[in-house]
C-alpha cells in the first residue's frame, strides 16, 4: 500500500515499523486458586526484578548518551518500583482477594493515583506519570507485551507515531531510528524540524496511517517525495535500495563543497548558516559546512526538565557552540517559550490563542528574573567568540527598547563584577510579526540586524495556523503579500546599512532561494542538512539572474505559478 503525506526530511529509509503509542493494556480480573497464590506472588516478584533490571540498563544508557539530569527520571522510576508500600499492598491484595497479579497492580496503582491527583502540588502530580509508567512496565511484563519505549529501541526501525513531542525527540537515537512517520504536522512542525536537523528521512501529515499499521510491517519511507509504502513488493524494495545508494552518492558529492565559499558566479557572496537547538546540533552544522549559526534556539535548554536552567549551565551551552565556530557568528535567540512550547514548571495559564498570547519576549519582559539570567549567560559567553543576540516576537519599538534596557543593566552588573564580555555584541530582532515588517525603517535605526522568521511571519500575515492542514493552501511562502513584506524589510535595512538574515524554513527552500537572493537577502539560516544543496545552487546562480527572477515573480500573484516559474528557470540554468 502506498500513502502520501508531507515531506519533512529528505532521504530514503527501509525497515521494520515500530509503533509508538499509548498502549491500552487489557487487564482482566481473575480468581487464583488458594494453593496457587504463592506462585502468583512469585510471578509478581519476578516482574519487579525484571523491571528493575530494565530500568537500571535504561538509566545507565541515558546517563551516557544524554547526561545525568535525564537519567534521574529513571532513578525515580526505580524508587517507585522498590517502594515497600506499593509492592506490599499488591502482594496483600493478591493474597486476601485471591486474584491475579495484574488486577492487583491496577487496583493499588489506581489507589495511589487518586491520592496524587488530589494533591495541590505540581511536582507530585507529575510523579503520577512516573507511577503510571512503572505500573505499565510491570503489566507489560506480566502480559507478555513487548515494551514500546523510545529509549529501548535496540534495532534499526522506522518510527510511527501520532505526533512526536519534544521529549520524544530528545530520546531519539539516530543510529536506531532510520525513518520517521507521523499522523499530524507539516514541514515546520517540531517533529519535522528535528527530523531534518538529525538527518532522519521523515514523512508527516499522514492522518490515520499509524492506526492502520501493525508492528513489524516492512516499510519504505521516501522523505524526498513524502511517500510511505507499507509491505511493498520486492521490486519496489530493490528500486528504493538503488535510490538510497544514489542519494548517498549525491550527498558525498555535496560534501566536497563543505569548505567552499557561498559565492555566485558573478562574485556576490552570501552567508549560509545553520539553525540549531543544542551543542550537539552545532557539530552536525560544522560537518555540513555551515558558516556560522543563524539561529540558536535556546528554548530546548529549558524543556524536558523540572526547573529553570542555571546561569552556569546556560553559559556552558552557549560557550561550547561559539568556541566551535571561532570568528564565525553565532546568533543566540533569547528564550522563545509559550505558544506550542510550554514549560510545566513555569505554571503558565492555558490560553485560547497561545500563538497570539503570552510568549517569547512578552514573557521575558514580564519575568525579568528569567530574562536576566539568560542575558548574563549569553554576555559571559560572548567573551569567547562572535556571539550576536536576537530577540524573538518583537512587535513594538517599546518592547525592543525595554529589552535593551534590561541588557544594559546586566552589562553594568558584569562590569561591576569585573566579568569579561564583548561590549560590542551585536543585537538584532526577529521579524516575524507583520507590524515589524511594516515598521522596518524605524526598527532599522535601533538594531544591528534583522532576521526574518518566516514560519511565524507567514502564519501571522495570512492568519493561517501552520499546523492546520485544512488551511495549508494559505500557509504558502510564495504568497505575494509575504514576498512584498520581505522585500520591504530588506530595502529598509540596506538603506540604514544593516544586514538581513532569514531563519525560517523558507531560507532552506531551494525554490525560494533564487527569489531571496534576487531581493538581496544577506544571510540564509537553515537546517544543517540544507546548507550544502543551497551552496551548490548559489555557486551556479549568477546574482544578476536571481534579480531577474525576483523581479518577474513580484509581477505575478499566484503562489503556484510563482513556484512553477522559479523551478523552470532553475532547470534551464542547470
Amino acid at each position, binding site marked *: 500500500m502506498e500513502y502520501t503525506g508531507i515531506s519533512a526530511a529528505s532521504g530514503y529509509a527501509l525497515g521494520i515499523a515500530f509503533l509508538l503509542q499509548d498502549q491500552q493494556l487489557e487487564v482482566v480480573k481473575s480468581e487464583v486458586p488458594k494453593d496457587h497464590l504463592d506462585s502468583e506472588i512469585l510471578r509478581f516478584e519476578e516482574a519487579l526484578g525484571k523491571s528493575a533490571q530494565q530500568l537500571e540498563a535504561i538509566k545507565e544508557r541515558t546517563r551516557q548518551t544524554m547526561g545525568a539530569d535525564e537519567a534521574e527520571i529513571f532513578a525515580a522510576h526505580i*524508587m*517507585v518500583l522498590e517502594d*515497600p508500600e506499593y509492592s506490599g499492598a499488591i502482594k496483600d491484595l493478591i493474597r486476601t482477594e485471591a486474584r491475579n497479579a495484574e488486577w492487583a497492580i491496577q487496583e493499588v496503582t489506581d489507589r*495511589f493515583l487518586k491520592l496524587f491527583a488530589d494533591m*495541590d*502540588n505540581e511536582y507530585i502530580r507529575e510523579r503520577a506519570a512516573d507511577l503510571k509508567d512503572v505500573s505499565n512496565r510491570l503489566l507489560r511484563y506480566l502480559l507478555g507485551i513487548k515494551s514500546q519505549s523510545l529509549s529501548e529501541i535496540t534495532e534499526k526501525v522506522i518510527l510511527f507515531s501520532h505526533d512526536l513531542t519534544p521529549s520524544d525527540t530528545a530520546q531519539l537515537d539516530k543510529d536506531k531510528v532510520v525513518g520517521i512517520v507521523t499522523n499530524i504536522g507539516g514541514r515546520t512542525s517540531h517533529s519535522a524540524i528535528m527530523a531534518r536537523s538529525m538527518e532522519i528521512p521523515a514523512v508527516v501529515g499522514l492522518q490515520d496511517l499509524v492506526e492502520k499499521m501493525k508492528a513489524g510491517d516492512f516499510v519504505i519511507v521516501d522523505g524526498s517525495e513524502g511517500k510511505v509504502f507499507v509491505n511493498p513488493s520486492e521490486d519496489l524494495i530493490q528500486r528504493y535500495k538503488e535510490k538510497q545508494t544514489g542519494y548517498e552518492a549525491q550527498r558525498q558529492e555535496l560534501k566536497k563543497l563543505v569548505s567552499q565559499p557561498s559565492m555566485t558566479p558573478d562574485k556576490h557572496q552570501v552567508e549560509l548558516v545553520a539553525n540549531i537547538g543544542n551543542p550537539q546540533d552545532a557539530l552536525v552544522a560544522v560537518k555540513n559546512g555551515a558558516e556560522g549559526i543563524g539561529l540558536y534556539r535556546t528554548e530546548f535548554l529549558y524543556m524536558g526538565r523540572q526547573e529553570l536552567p542555571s546561569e552556569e549551565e546556560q553559559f556552558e551551552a552557549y560557550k561550547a557552540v561559539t568556541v566551535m565556530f571561532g570568528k564565525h557568528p553565532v546568533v543566540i535567540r533569547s528564550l522563545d517559550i509559550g505558544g506550542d512550547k510550554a514549560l510545566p514548571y513555569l505554571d503558565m495559564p492555558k490560553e485560547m490563542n497561545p500563538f497570539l498570547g503570552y510568549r517569547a519576549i512578552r514573557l521575558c519582559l514580564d519575568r525579568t528574573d528569567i530574562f536576566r539570567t539568560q542575558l548574563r549567560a549569553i554576555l559571559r559567553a560572548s567573551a569567547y567568540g562572535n556571539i550576536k543576540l536576537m530577540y524573538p516576537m518583537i512587535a513594538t519599538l517599546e518592547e525592543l527598547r525595554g529589552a535593551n534596557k534590561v541588557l544594559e543593566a546586566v552589562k553594568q552588573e558584569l562590569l561591576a563584577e569585573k566579568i569579561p564580555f564583548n561590549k560590542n555584541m551585536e543585537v538584532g530582532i526577529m521579524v516575524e510579526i507583520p507590524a515589524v515588517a511594516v515598521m522596518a525603517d524605524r526598527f532599522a535605526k535601533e538594531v544591528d540586524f534583522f532576521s526574518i522568521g518566516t514560519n511565524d511571519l507567514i502564519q501571522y500575515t495570512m492568519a493561517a495556523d501552520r499546523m492546520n492542514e485544512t488551511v495549508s493552501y494559505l500557509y504558502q511562502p510564495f504568497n505575494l503579500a509575504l514576498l512584498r513584506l520581505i522585500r520591504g524589510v530588506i530595502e529598509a535595512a540596506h538603506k540604514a546599512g544593516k544586514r538581513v538574515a532569514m531563519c525560517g524554513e523558507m531560507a532552506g527552500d531551494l525554490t525560494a532561494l533564487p527569489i531571496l537572493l534576487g531581493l538581496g537577502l544577506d544571510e540564509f539560516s537553515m537546517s544543517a542538512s540544507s546548507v550544502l544543496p543551497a551552496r551548490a545552487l548559489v555557486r551556479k546562480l549568477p546574482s544578476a539572474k536571481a534579480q531577474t527572477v525576483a523581479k518577474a515573480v513580484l509581477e505575478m500573484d499566484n503562489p503556484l505559478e510563482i513556484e512553477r516559474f522559479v523551478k523552470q528557470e532553475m532547470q534551464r540554468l542547470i
Partner: protein
Amino acid sequence: MEKTFKIKSPSGLHARPAAMLVQKAGSFPCDVFLVKGDKKINAKSIMSILALGIEANEEIVVITEGEKEAEAMQAIGELLEA
C-alpha cells in the same frame, strides 16, 4: 524512639529531599515512620511520603522502632536539619 522536626527545605519534603529521606530510612534495618497530624506512614515508601504532602515549615514526628533505631534517628535527624 520519637522526635519532632520542622521541615526546613523551602520546597517541603518533595523531590530530592524526599528521595534522600527514603534512601536513608531504607539503609537501616529498623522500621521508620513519619507522622503528620493523624496520619502515620512508612518512611521507606517514596509514594507514601509524597502522598503525605509535607510543606516547608511543617512539623513532623519521626518514629524509629527496632534494630539500630538510635542510629537511624541520628542519621535522619541530620538529614532533616541540614
